[in-house]
């Protein structure tokens, strides 16, 4: 492999891992700020980088039953949020394939 590989983004504002500064997503990819995670506020992004996905499991959330996978920072392996695989309710379908990053685990990076 030759080197650890991280993606670097550019855009107006870049959100990255609080612990290790790895880039996750830019503000252009942010879809909503109105989510709640285990640690408080969370944001919905259409695309994130430098995360690895865990196993899918069913989880009941305030908005209903979903299949989600936890996502982890590739550099420091902290859990930073989750990804929606499937939503059982029609109104929640828009979340499928999108990512949640918890506000507690990310910060603005350069």
């Amino acid at each position: 492999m030759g080197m650890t590989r991280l993606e670097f983004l550019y855009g107006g504002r870049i959100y990255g891992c609080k612990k290790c500064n790895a880039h996750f997503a830019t503000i252009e990819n942010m879809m909503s700020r109105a989510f709640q995670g285990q640690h408080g506020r969370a944001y919905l992004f259409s695309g994130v980088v430098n995360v690895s996905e865990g196993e899918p499991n069913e989880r009941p959330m305030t908005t209903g039953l979903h299949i989600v996978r936890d996502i982890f920072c590739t550099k420091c392996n902290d859990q930073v949020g989750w990804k929606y695989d499937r939503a059982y309710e029609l109104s929640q379908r828009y979340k499928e394939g999108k990512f949640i990053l918890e506000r507690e685990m990310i910060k603005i990076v350069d």
Partner: protein
Amino acid sequence: MGSESSQALPGISSSIPQSSRIRPYAAVGPTWTPLPRASTEPPHKRRRTDNFRGSIPPFDSENHIQATSRHQLVGSGEAAEAMRLTQTDDGAEPPSTTQSMQDVINGNVPCLTSWRSIAQQLTLNPISELNPTMGSDPYSSSSPSRIMPSAEDQFVAVKNVHAKGLSNGSTNGSVTNGSLSPRIEFNSEHNPRRVGTITRVSPPGTTLYPGSATNREQFVRLVLQALKDIGYSESASVLEAESGFSFETTRVTAFRNAVMEGNWAVAQKGLLALGVRDEDSLRAAHFLINQQKYLEYLENNQSTEALLTLRQEIAPFDIEPARLNHLSSLIMSRNPDDLRRRASWDGARGNSRRILLDRLQQFVPSSTMVPPRRLDTLLEQAREYQQHMCEYHMNPHDSSLYHDHLCSRAQFPTTTTHILEGHADEVWQVQWSHRGDRLASSSKDQTVIIWKIARVSNSIELDCTLEKVLRGHIYPLNAIAWSPDDKLLLSSGEHEVKLWDVESGRCIKTLTEHHHLVNGLCWLPNGEGFITGSMDRKVIHWDAAGEVTLIWPLVDIRISGLAITPNGQQLVAIGLLAHPVTTVDESGTSIVNQATVLQVSAGVQPTAEPRSNNGNSADMERRVVLYDIASGQELWSQALWGELQSVKISDDSRFALINHSQGDVMLWDLPSGRLAQRYLGRPKGASYVRSCFGGADSRFILSGSDDGRIYIWNRRTSTLFEILSGHESGVNSVDWCPRENAIFASCGDDGTIRIWGPEPNGFLVDASPVFSQDVSNGDIHNGKDDGVLTTLDRHLTPPPTTAKDSPLR
């Protein structure tokens, strides 16, 4: 074919194919090929065949001089008679005749009795000119009858050819135009020792051999120069007489003598006579002469004459005022020694006159005055050319005029001699220490291992031991760098940089100034500090203790590689552009266009309009940037597409070697900012692969590759001449040993490090030790296994081989 000249320089004659020596020549008469027998039997034929038919020796390099000397005058009945007499020990000649002739040819003290005897014999001969080419070729395998033409026809032929060109024997058809060398018919009056005459030998045509491109006159004059320089003046005069060419005209000799004797007026007049016409050259030449004259007056304490020279002859010449001032100031010198020192001048009795002559010679046309040491210069060029063309060049000292220099592949490192195992995961970089006695390797397993590589005394074996394991990083290791004195080692894992003391293996300091991956670690060549560059766009200067001394303002690129030129002045950085140009302005257009041309040929299409991306930085712009270290200024930057993986700088601080994800390895010329060379052959790859320069004069480029093979190119011609297999998966880094000249190291994703060297001799079945270290337990074994000689498949498409299982070859 001048057999004289072929003996003086045997190398030349041996390279001429045999067929060209006897070639039909459509000239006046069949002068180059033997004539068919005339109807009348020549009177001396039988005697001649008695002598020569049986006595053509096979070509023997020791004796061939002897052999050809016997055949020199073949072709003429009387001459043959003379030869026969000289060869056999008849009482008529001193028994050492042939020996002495050999001496003459070899350049020893010439014995002239032989010449005299032959000359005497020749005067019996009605023909004063000889054609030595006929049949004097001992190497020819043609039948004796061809070699010995009939004497009568020989006479006829000779008469025909030379009668046409001759007018009283003073000029001859081989005079080349423009030459000032006079023709010397006989030189008996020049040298009183030579009683007999040296007869001129004039083969037809103007080239050295038939079909050769070398002009005979030019060649002879160069040989004359060489003979005179060595001191073989007798040989030189004989050659002048025999060839009819002279080394230089009397005018040139007069000029040369005038300069060497300090006869400046004559010298200055001589300049014009020699053909220096151009105003600027004349002025420069006159200035040089006057300067020498002035200095010599000063040295001799003739200050009035010196002043006169200065005022009237130097000053009006419109030279730079600084120079004029310096010359004037030399009047103040207290004594000649002081003068010599201040003027950096050798003195009239030293080399200064010869140096002056050399400098003046540059203004004279080279055909008039042959440049000094010209033949040696040409041979030097030939030598350099051969070394340049030598593909596996490892041994610069093997150089002889007798054969072309060519190093064999057997001296080039093509086999794995050692496999070092100690890492638990992929090994990403290897680097030799500057002294070449240690190897540092860094790995994904978060450790650095230092190996000691030593040569077992008096053998070609290397002894490789694991010396230290440096633990402490919490991330995989990205870069390592030895300090110039090899006492300290820097290593970086993600954003952490650690400074280690090599002797103790202890981590001196952990530097956390960066917050993104640090991939650029380089020491300043004076060892006073180092520079780090990171993906966070910071370039930081540190001192040798690990304290920050300077932080640059943020640079435009996220640095993925950094290298400092060995002269310590410039910094090359490669990286990803952090904020691409979104508007296509003037400069943006030109950058895109330039880079586009480069990259389209490599198969990468640049994005037309970079916008906020979806995390696909493979399409984002990369840059190579050259900075001046002292000022921090960007000297130039070049945009490229496709990831730039590693950068290394050549020893002359002039070129940067950059690996590209498209597979090619690029060589950039730093002063001009242009791509100088590109080495193709590797497949595309996303891994960060490091390449290196190799060979004593950096004539090889080596690189690993994702396909597990090591590619080696000739740097100048960019020919891929070796592909070495052995690693079981991608090779991440190669490094050439700075001390040994035929060893390099490589490391790969299979967790091993390999040392490569030349193929061992067939009968040397010695095992190369394979070291297996269990790093995680901390105990280090230094035992040799029952070693396996690992050799490698050198075919270009190898079957996969496991290192330990390959058979002994």
